[in-house]
């Protein structure tokens, strides 16, 4: 779990005059666990997982676990970028369109311009980074709010994609079928990518200067600037990280489904990731967030999608359940955060 000040508050002063009684280990361990920002969503994910495991024998099977992890991984990976951005007080609405455009760019480069497969993949990933830079330039340097900036660049990317593809799916170019196994074709490749990236960025956020400065920029932008932190650099970097993970997921899903589909990604991919981030404990107003929480948030969304599909609930009522589940998770989060606050105040 992340080591933020709040979570280490077990070292905080005891209430003066309080009786020196020491609670037992289970209570102390429980209290410590509940102090973790990721605790609520972790519990919700586990409860949902157990519910579907015991209510439907088809849930905990290898085939279904592959589907479950393939639902989870894209949300979790994009959520990495959104968490970093939300913490520093920004958001990227265009990431779902970077996701959709990246595999098409790879296809265009290979099939229309004869670019070698690996170079095409690298350039497609780089496209995500460049779009992230453009988002940062318009937001940080020009001063347009990121909500509007990324809405605009999202539309532009979507327009370019639909115009160039005529709204038609494409095939994975033969040149990259082999390398594609490592990106998404192998059953567990996406979840491995997700776990590795989540682990790396969890460390980046909680144990490096970049993470600390990201929190500082979102917590008090002027204060961070006054302390000499290059606020613009932090925001540029996090926009570019988000663009990169968006492009990466786009390529992975294309390889996994063996098809390049213009309807992939879009706002749904972005909103799922932002939802995962927020139910995982990331604040919309900046300064607070956790990558690990977003991963568990993605697990909640994936287990709901997958579990209810297995139960035979069709897509339309699923959205009702989805919405209610998100609200319940958020209410639990807010309530627990309040409890954590009261616990510290004592």
């Amino acid at each position, binding site marked *: 779990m992340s080591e933020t*000040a709040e979570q280490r*508050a077990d070292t*905080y002063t005891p209430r003066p005059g309080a009786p020196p009684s020491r609670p037992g280990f289970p209570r102390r361990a429980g209290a410590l666990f509940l102090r973790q920002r990721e605790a609520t969503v972790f519990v919700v994910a586990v409860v949902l997982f157990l519910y579907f495991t015991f209510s439907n024998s088809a849930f905990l099977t290898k085939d279904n676990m592959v589907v479950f992890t393939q639902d989870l991984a894209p949300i979790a990976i994009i959520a990495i970028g959104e968490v970093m951005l939300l913490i520093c007080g920004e958001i990227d609405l265009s990431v779902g369109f970077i996701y959709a455009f990246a595999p098409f760019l790879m296809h265009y480069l290979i099939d229309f311009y004869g670019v070698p497969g690996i170079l095409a993949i690298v350039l497609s990933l780089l496209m995500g980074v460049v779009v992230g830079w453009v988002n940062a330039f318009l937001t940080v340097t020009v001063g347009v709010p990121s909500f509007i900036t990324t809405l605009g660049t999202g539309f532009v990317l979507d327009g370019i994609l639909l115009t160039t593809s005529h709204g038609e799916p494409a095939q994975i170019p033969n040149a990259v079928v082999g390398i594609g196994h490592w990106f998404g074709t192998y059953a567990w490749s996406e979840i491995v990518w997700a776990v590795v990236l989540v682990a790396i960025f969890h460390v980046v956020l909680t144990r490096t200067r970049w993470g600390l400065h990201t929190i*500082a920029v979102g917590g008090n932008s*002027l*204060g*961070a600037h*006054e302390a*000499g932190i290059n606020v613009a650099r932090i925001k540029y970097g996090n926009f570019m990280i988000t663009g990169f993970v968006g492009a990466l997921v786009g390529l992975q899903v294309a390889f996994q489904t063996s098809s390049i589909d213009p309807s992939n990604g879009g706002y749904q991919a972005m909103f799922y990731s932002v939802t995962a981030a927020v139910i995982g404990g990331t604040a919309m107003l900046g*300064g607070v967030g956790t990558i690990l929480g977003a991963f568990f948030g993605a697990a909640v969304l994936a287990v709901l999608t997958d579990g209810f599909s297995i139960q035979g609930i069709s897509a339309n009522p699923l959205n009702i359940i989805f919405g209610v589940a998100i609200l319940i998770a958020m209410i639990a989060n807010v309530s627990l955060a309040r409890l954590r606050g009261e616990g510290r105040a004592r």
Partner: protein
Amino acid sequence: MTSGPAGPPAPASPDGDTPASPDGDVLRAEHIAKRFGAVTALVDVNMRLGKGEVLGLLGDNGAGKSTLIKILCGFQPQDSGRIILNGQEVSFKSVDQARSLGIDVVYQDLALINQLSVYHNMFLNRERVRWPLLANRSMRKAARQYLDEMGVNLPSVDAEVSRLSGGQRQAIAVARAVYTQAKILLLDEPLAAMGAKEAAMILDLVRDLKRKGEVSIIIIAHNYGQVLEICDRVNLLQHGEITLDKPAAETSVQELNDIVIEEYRAALQARHRAAG
């Protein structure tokens, strides 16, 4: 923009002290001017700071005190004028550059990050790193040791600063500036909105620094009694210029109050004339 090329800082003396210029001043501001659009914040500021001196910078709200402090610490550039550090002209491009030359600042808003711990705030943007990771243990230990040495009582250096009192937050901001071995310390209203007990803690910190004589301090404050008690000299900033420069021993709360009242009366008369 600054006038003239940036000069290198004077080399530090072998014992690490900031060498004063031949006239004994560690910092001089000459003809500093600053505008923000149509608003003129500083017209022609000339001030000096001696080695080990505590200088009180006084003035009405909006007189340009904070603007001057932010220029001297590298947060923003002046439009014209020169800053002379240890006898050499300097042109700060950033807070980091000024800090590397021994100038540190405690801003009026403290520049603390509520979501971070005490020790992360103390080391903000000068973190100890065992690449690529933060050396949290080392920073935590150093912060605790430093705050103890300064006599700042805190429940824990792991606590979020949002949970601390105004005085504790102020003390952390001062400690953060001091622990870097700053030779020139700029304190922008360190006693603002503070109770007597908390203000006493900050004043004690300043007295302690003054007694050691290693740090030169410019302090902005509104309570003239407190200022005169700890300062060696006071400067009054009015309408973008220094209009009074006296040793603290040669002025009084009464004189400073009279000047402020005079300024207030003049403003009132000007307002009535404009209305009439």
